């Protein structure tokens, strides 16, 4: 990474470091099951999208990731995201009671500044999940986020999670990405 600066004088290295800390913090919030604090990383107008990943030939790669309008694995706004978190506190969300044990590993961060001071970032992740006695899943994929600065903090207003799996080899996706 070169020591370029953005328009407001912030160096790219500082920004990369700041955002990497943001994602490390996010991973710990999820793995420590602080889901309310995790929700607060998203704006109220957030669009959280996990499309389907199709298995297609090379000449059809434009159809590999399903678009908005097709059925997705997750297509949440803040209300749906809040419902997912609220559910866990009812004491009757059986898929997460006993809860999953997760480890989110996030890296390969690249940042693209957007006009008006917003940021677009891309990260790669591995999510390990252990559940009940012997259930294990490993999910891999990418996340593309759009972030804006709200009250001096970065918040995500759009997240697109693209899994690398076609048929999901898990009984459910009751953990957060």
């Amino acid at each position, binding site marked *: 990474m070169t020591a370029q600066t953005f328009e407001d004088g912030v160096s790219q290295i500082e920004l990369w470091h700041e955002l990497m800390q943001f994602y490390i913090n996010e991973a710990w919030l999820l793995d420590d099951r602080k889901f309310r604090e995790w929700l607060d990383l998203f704006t109220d107008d957030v669009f959280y999208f996990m499309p389907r990943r199709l298995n297609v030939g090379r000449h059809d790669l434009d159809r590999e990731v399903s678009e908005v309008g097709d*059925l997705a694995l997750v297509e949440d706004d803040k209300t749906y995201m809040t*419902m997912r978190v609220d559910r866990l506190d009812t004491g*009757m*969300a059986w898929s997460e009671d006993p809860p999953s044990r997760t480890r989110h590993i996030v890296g390969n961060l690249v940042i693209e500044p957007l006009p008006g001071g917003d940021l677009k970032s891309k990260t790669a992740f591995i999510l390990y999940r252990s559940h009940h006695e012997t259930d294990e899943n490993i999910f891999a994929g990418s996340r593309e986020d759009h972030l804006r600065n709200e009250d001096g903090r970065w918040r995500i207003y759009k997240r697109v999670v693209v899994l690398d799996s076609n048929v999901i080899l898990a009984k459910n996706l009751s953990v957060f990405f």
Partner: protein
Amino acid sequence: MAVSNKKYNVIDLETGKLDSRIFSDPDIYQEELEKIFGRAWLMIGHDSLVPEVNDFFHTYMGEDPVILTKDDKGKIHAFLNMCRHRGNRIVRADIGNAKNFMCSYHGWTYSNEGDLEYVPGEEEAYYGALDRKSFHLVEARVETYAGIVFATWDPGAPSLDEYLGDARWGLDVFFNRLDSGTEVVGPVKWIEPINWKTAVDNCSDNYHVPTTHLSAIIVQGRHFGLPRTTHEQQFESPNKHLFINGHSLTLRFLERADQARQTHGVTQENRALFEEYYRETLPEAERRLGSLRAGKLQLGNHSLFPNGVLGFRLAHPRGPLETEFWHFVVLEKGMPDEIKRALRIGNGNFNGVAGIFEQDDMDNWRGVTRSSLTPLARKYSHDLSMGLGRAGSDPDFPGTVAERYTSENNQRNFYRRWEEFMNAEDWADIPIEPVTADFEGTATLNG
């Protein structure tokens, strides 16, 4: 067939006791692939998945991979995805558009009508002795119902119309309401650690909803203003729980013809939009289905024998202990975009692999499946006695109708149907109920 000759006698209709070995025994499973998935009409796709000529959609019939093609004349075919030379798969993608399919092993090439069109070295290597015409792709019988593609391997199977029989009377309420028909989005695919029958059985299980899905019911009440589904409601409901010609249906009564249907995606906020839509489409629906089916009923949870689950969703068997589930959402083509969006998102976020309702089903069904794995547990049969002797005919509805909306009558009959297939020598032994319902209106099997 006399009872004494029955190989399988797994459900006792007098007591409701079910032999749990059917969920995990590998030999029974292999026989299911042959006698159920090799015989029945199976839902395998939808017109809207192959909109253009030469489109293909890769699907399954049981564990057998199947290529659903639309040839250049617009005819739909279903082929076993297997090269006739050495058995290799000739299609490896989920979807695409192709006039020909070339096997990547030796280059045998088939048309999308199934003909073996080209064999490298036909004259030289085979000395002209290969009878190319005899190597047509293995082809299933295909018929459609209101855009849904069904297929069967068995030439002795009755027509799809007979196979659905009076069940179509209820299915039409959802699948066959408007002239312009339906389209599907999806599928979301995942592997469930369950026997395929548990997912089908559950479609008639109104009993589990207030317990299994309580957390989702609570939060959808809080955020969407929806009334809470309770046991009391489910027990006292006047809604109908019917078993018709092998298929399990539930039908809910509407208070008004323009009532927003009880389905995922409807909220207090967008309810008026749905009401307006149902109001506007009512005359067309009445012309097609008559006033009872168009304006007084909603199709609730249902399953089509063997593995069609709630709407157009598929439970593909993957061994006795695993099921590959395909979650689609069915939309009426003419729906305004805002309604399509609400239904897509609601059905996508509440059901499917990440759905806040469906994710809570998985460990229950796994528990049911695995209860048959040990000699000790197998001694204790499952109890499906709910509502025994409390079902019969109803002057207003076809099939066998349970007295209450919460009943295990459909599940008992599902396993009885399973026995009928498993004990039959061929289709001549499998009973088909005659069509007796009054299919008021202009809608037909073909839309």
